[in-house]
């Protein structure tokens, strides 16, 4: 057992940290968000230069052969800085889907563009009624010669407005909520029949509602049996989100401790109040628990046993959700008035944390799912 980063991992971490320190301050980020797409193509190019965009792909595929721990390292740093670029959508989510589903030819066609920062991807999975279920899919895929045609409506597609390429789940067979019959399809965002409505999200990112009307598509893997792959990829997304959340929490905790030490009231630093110190300690305990579970998630997201893997991911999401809610609410409360304004960073972290807490299944739903699977400890 070894918790130390490898030399390569430390190098990666240092270069990401340095770049964010240089280029991703609070004011700079405001500028990136104000761009037409809601993020910076310039920063995106820097990510490409650092090798971050090809991270999860093998060297043969045109990437850098990074694992889930590398992804977690990047995402934690991004969480601290509240990066708004479509890294999660393109590299984490679609990267995982491609690695598990795409053929060598498809990889060859896509990965170089991704790694070079020339191709942004988005994962179109959610539908109006699906509420985080991976099987509640009404979008249809119908065979059309060698290819497919997709018709349906996808919702809450993260960075779906700026993506050049969409990975779309659709049903080629089977009934609503059935495990069988689901496929994953590659769609060009400018294909005829695609219409998109982009919008900002509560946490300063972007998403889109996407309508697909008889859109030409290419299957990624088996067009009717993609669910195990979607589940595997979903768990890798969860692991990355957990890591990002730890970054968000780390920043909120650090800002709060710093604020308590510097903010003066009634003639002394408010952090001299023992009641507030103890609350900062409880936040720290929550943070360390979350950090531990994010590591556990990174370790278990590639576990070969799907049941053990899912148990672990449910547990991780629960811990992250609980710690994040605790730390976020306390960070705002202990900051007082400035905590509830957009002019100070902590509130932005709080909003991102809230969306992570409630995205990809909220804490209650993951706890219920873990309980249904019998918990973590065998009787």
């Amino acid at each position, binding site marked *: 057992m070894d918790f130390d980063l490898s030399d390569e991992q430390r190098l990666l971490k240092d270069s990401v940290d340095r770049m964010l320190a240089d280029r991703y301050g609070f004011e700079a980020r405001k500028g990136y968000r104000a761009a037409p797409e809601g993020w910076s193509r310039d920063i995106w190019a820097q990510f490409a230069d650092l090798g971050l965009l090809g991270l999860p792909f093998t060297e043969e595929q045109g990437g850098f052969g990074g694992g889930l721990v590398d992804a977690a390292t990047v995402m934690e740093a991004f969480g601290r800085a509240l990066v708004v670029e479509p890294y999660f959508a393109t590299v984490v989510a679609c990267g995982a889907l491609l690695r598990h589903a795409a053929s060598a030819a498809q990889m060859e066609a896509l990965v170089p563009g991704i790694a070079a920062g020339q191709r942004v991807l988005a994962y179109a999975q*959610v539908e*109006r*009624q699906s*509420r*985080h*279920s991976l099987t509640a899919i009404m979008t249809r895929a119908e065979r059309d010669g060698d290819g497919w045609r997709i018709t349906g409506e996808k*919702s*809450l597609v993260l960075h779906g407005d700026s993506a050049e390429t969409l990975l779309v789940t659709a049903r080629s067979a089977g009934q609503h*909520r059935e495990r069988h019959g689901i496929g994953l399809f590659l769609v060009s965002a400018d294909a005829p029949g695609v219409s998109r*409505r982009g*919008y*900002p*999200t*509560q*946490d300063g990112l972007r*998403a889109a*509602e996407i309508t697909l009307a008889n859109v030409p598509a290419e299957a990624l893997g088996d067009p009717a049996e993609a669910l195990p792959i979607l589940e595997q990829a979903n768990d890798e997304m969860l692991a990355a989100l957990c890591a990002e959340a730890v970054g968000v929490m780390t920043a909120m905790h650090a800002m709060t401790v710093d604020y308590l030490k510097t*903010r*003066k*009231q*009634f003639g002394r630093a408010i952090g001299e*109040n023992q*009641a*507030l110190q103890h609350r900062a300690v409880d936040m720290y305990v929550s943070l360390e628990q979350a950090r531990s579970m994010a590591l556990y998630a990174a370790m278990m997201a590639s576990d070969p046993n799907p049941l053990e893997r899912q148990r672990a991911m449910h547990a991780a999401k629960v811990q992250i959700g609980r710690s994040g809610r605790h730390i976020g*609410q306390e960070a*705002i*409360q202990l900051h*007082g*008035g400035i*905590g*509830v*304004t*957009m*002019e100070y960073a902590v*509130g932005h972290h*709080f*909003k991102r944390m*809230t*969306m992570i807490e*409630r*995205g990809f299944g*909220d804490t*209650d*739903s993951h706890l*219920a799912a873990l309980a249904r699977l019998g918990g973590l400890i065998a009787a």
Partner: protein
Amino acid sequence: MDLRFTAEENAFRERMRDFFTTQIPADIREQVQRGEHVSRDQQVAAQRIMNAHGLAVPHWPAEWGGQDWTPVQLYIYQDEMQQNCVPAPLGFNANMVGPVIAQFGSDAQKKQFLPATANLDIWWCQGFSEPGAGSDLASLRTTAVRDGDHYVVNGQKTWTTLAQYADWIFCLARTDPGAAKKQQGISFILIDMQTPGITVRPIQTLDGGVEVNEVWFDDVRVPVENLVGEENRGWDYAKFLLGNERTGIARVGVSKARIRRIKQLAALEHVGDRAMIEEPHFREKLAAVEVELKALEMTQLRVVADERKRDRALPNPASSILKIKGSELQQATTELLMDVVGPYILPYDDHEHGSNEPPVGPEYAAEAAPTYFNWRKISIYGGSNEIQRNIVAKAILGF
């Protein structure tokens, strides 16, 4: 001891409910129910209807529009107003500056301001907080220097709620910088917002809206007749003002209305095949909040009943308990609402900046996250819950 409302009290409740549900326009109440801010015009419209029926400022002295109600009647009035999603009469007018002028103002001030304040012909804002002061209100640095028959005011206020709508501001300013204690040498001054030298800068809050502002005073000349009461005694008036809101602070009616709405929406939202309201875990979470809310309602009634025996000029430390628990429960309901809405809390509806597109997801989803974000403030403002705990520790537990 009889813990039930009397027949008269129940009849009074019926009368209030009837008034609020038939006289206040439905669109305003629905907007409040959805969790949206009301506009300036809507706030004015609602308050003027109430005032026309003598219901805007029932707790004021009778000669200035007050009703001679018991504390229980005042409680019922407030509870029905909250439960029926009626925007309360503007607090700065009805609960803050109005009672101060009625108690400490000159006859001329009373005539000039009280009727207009009750009717919201004047929209007041509050100039107490200053940057860096926080809960240590008395450390304020804004000055008012006498120059002939004017004060010249310089300084900066912050967290000034709805200053962008305001006609007048009531301020605390330091008139005697040499006073021995920082609570001394402060005066309570009324200032027309149109006076040259006043600048208002909006502060955007987490929900994306603008509720609060910074207000700068740069050599603002204020006629001395706008001083309330005696010079250098402003701290006393501010304490009177802050102690005035004692029981409504729990906002039990607001939480009840939100729980009702949550239950309605949870019947519409489905998790798998089942309506959310049928989920045992969710029902139990809801029920747990309902229990605490019922207890708080009873606690509030006990404080209300106790009011009869108290000197109304003294703050009641029990109101700190109402503030602590009331804010926690209001915040809990905002989280339950997000539970119901589910994934569709995510889109940000930028209506403040003129977006006219239909909402993404169900129409009730858009306000869920902003309400959660915005309501974090209620355990911070008006004396944070930490300050309330200090008050209880000292005034009730005797530490």
